[in-house]
């Protein structure tokens, strides 16, 4: 219906109103109180929403500020480049930084190909059915398993059953298992976001489905998959429970020489200093310093992922 057709109706309704017998109120007068109420309500609603959003940022900033305030003083070159000394009451945290970095790299090397392959199967090959539903159920439940259960599983399976021992490899495998659901989820989203027209164009040119996946679909989905993988692993890298039975130990004299060596790691080091040491109060600045390094590492990984994604997107477009 055209606006012109609406107009007479509106006038008729106004004419029927009792007020219109004496003096017809102007539109502004009639609407003013309601308009004001609606505007106030909107202002309040937006205020509440904005405050809720701000609480998130505030929580993050508060944590960072707290750790910075207490830990910044101890973080210097010596702290970053030396192993701990004097029963861990002095010295640095180099082995922990190296350990956590190696764990992250190791778990991404394991989880990325496995996660990507699973996602490709789920989104490109699997036909809907009972098996697919079962796999999906498994993946979403894996995401809900507490990290300490992953730690116990890692100890039972990798450390003891596969005889890998408490080692970098066992820890990386455990963290990989833990970050898999996140990686698969992100990779599947990235693959689903690839327009179907690319698949059709490729198949219509006589490409096989495998060629289509590798040459037309994955290149487009790669930024999303990589970012998901890094985010998944960076979250796992901050976990203590999965590595406390599988990879990390109280103290190692040197840096790991092979994947079968025990390692020190930042989150476990914090846990040890804060709970298991004899000098908990004296090492408090060291604890905060270690926490600062850990949070910088995790945020740094996330930032790298985001920058890498935007780089790839620019190259693709």
């Amino acid at each position: 219906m055209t606006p012109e057709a609406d107009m007479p109706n509106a006038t008729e309704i106004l004419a029927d109103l009792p007020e219109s017998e004496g003096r017809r109120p102007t539109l502004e007068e009639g609407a003013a109180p309601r308009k004001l109420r609606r505007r106030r309500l909107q202002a309040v609603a937006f205020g509440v929403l904005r405050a809720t959003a701000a609480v998130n940022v505030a929580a993050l900033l508060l944590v960072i500020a707290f750790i910075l305030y207490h830990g910044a003083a101890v973080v210097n070159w010596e702290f970053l480049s030396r192993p701990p000394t004097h029963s861990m009451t002095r010295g640095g945290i180099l082995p922990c930084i190296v350990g956590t970095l190696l764990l992250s790299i190791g778990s991404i090397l394991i989880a990325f190909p496995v996660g990507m392959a699973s996602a490709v199967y789920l989104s490109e090959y699997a036909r809907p059915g009972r098996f697919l539903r079962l796999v999906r159920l498994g993946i979403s439940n894996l995401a809900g398993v507490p990290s300490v259960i992953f730690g116990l599983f890692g100890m039972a399976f990798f450390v003891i059953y596969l005889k890998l021992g408490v080692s970098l490899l066992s820890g990386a495998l455990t963290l990989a298992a833990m970050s898999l659901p996140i990686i698969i989820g992100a990779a599947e989203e990235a693959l689903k976001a690839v327009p179907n027209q690319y698949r059709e164009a490729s198949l219509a040119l006589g490409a096989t489905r495998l060629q289509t996946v590798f040459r037309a679909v994955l290149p487009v989905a790669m930024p999303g998959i990589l970012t998901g993988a890094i985010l998944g692993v960076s979250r796992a890298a901050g976990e203590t429970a999965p590595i406390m039975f599988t990879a990390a130990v109280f103290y190692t004299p040197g840096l790991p020489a092979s994947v079968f060596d025990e390692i020190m790691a930042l989150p476990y080091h914090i846990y040890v200093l804060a709970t298991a040491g004899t000098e908990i109060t004296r090492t408090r600045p060291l604890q905060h310093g270690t926490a600062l390094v850990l949070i910088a590492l995790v945020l740094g990984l996330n930032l790298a992922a985001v920058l890498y994604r935007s780089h790839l997107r620019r190259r693709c477009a």
Partner: protein
Amino acid sequence: MSAPTPPAAKAAARHLHFYYGSVEALQDVSIDFPARQVTALIGPSGCGKSTFIRCLNRMNDLIPHTRVTGELWLDGKNIYAPGVDVVDLRSRIGMVFQKPNPFPKSIFDNVAYGLRVNGRKGQDFIRHRVEESLQKAALWAEVRDRLDASALSLSGGQQQRLCIARALAVEPEMLLMDEPCSALDPIGTQKIEDLILELKATYTIIVVTHNMQQASRVSDFTAFFYLGRLIEAAETPQLFSRPRHKQTEDYLTGRFG
């Protein structure tokens, strides 16, 4: 069932039925496509013309819960017979889609894509074939200096000609075009139409179109589809001037559709 005699035409459908689940999208379609001629498929939206051309390179295989009965012949072979290599079939039939869909790769890599997936090797050979295909698609002059630029930096009309070049590079015998101009402006449309008239010297072309002027301008034969049935197929001038069926006439005169 006794072995049916293959039709003489380049491609032909015999009693073709197509089902999406329990919905019959094509009912008993029989039609011939003569070699090196342009056949236009017209009809209102949802009449089955796109479904039909997607049967010709078996793109519909990708949609779950679909079923085909009847025969579809290409060079005397039923492409729905068991044991047909679908990948090989698709490399013999080029397809151009409604919306230009170049890959987010360079112009060169787009045209080379089909060659590479079909295992054609040799830098010089590929470079030569890419240039040749871009020339056939009347795009070479516009892109020769920027073959490494992203295909997405081209205009819509250029992208569609790139998609045609990409299809031609594989040296198909047939070109299927599913409303190739519906996303283009009049200038882009004009160029594609000129191209169709040039390409029919080499290829058998089937064009789905909503634009009846376009059908009359570019095609030798026109087939009118309505509600999943082929109502009428004839030489284009005859179908437009003396349609045999009431439904065809009503559609052509704009009484429905």
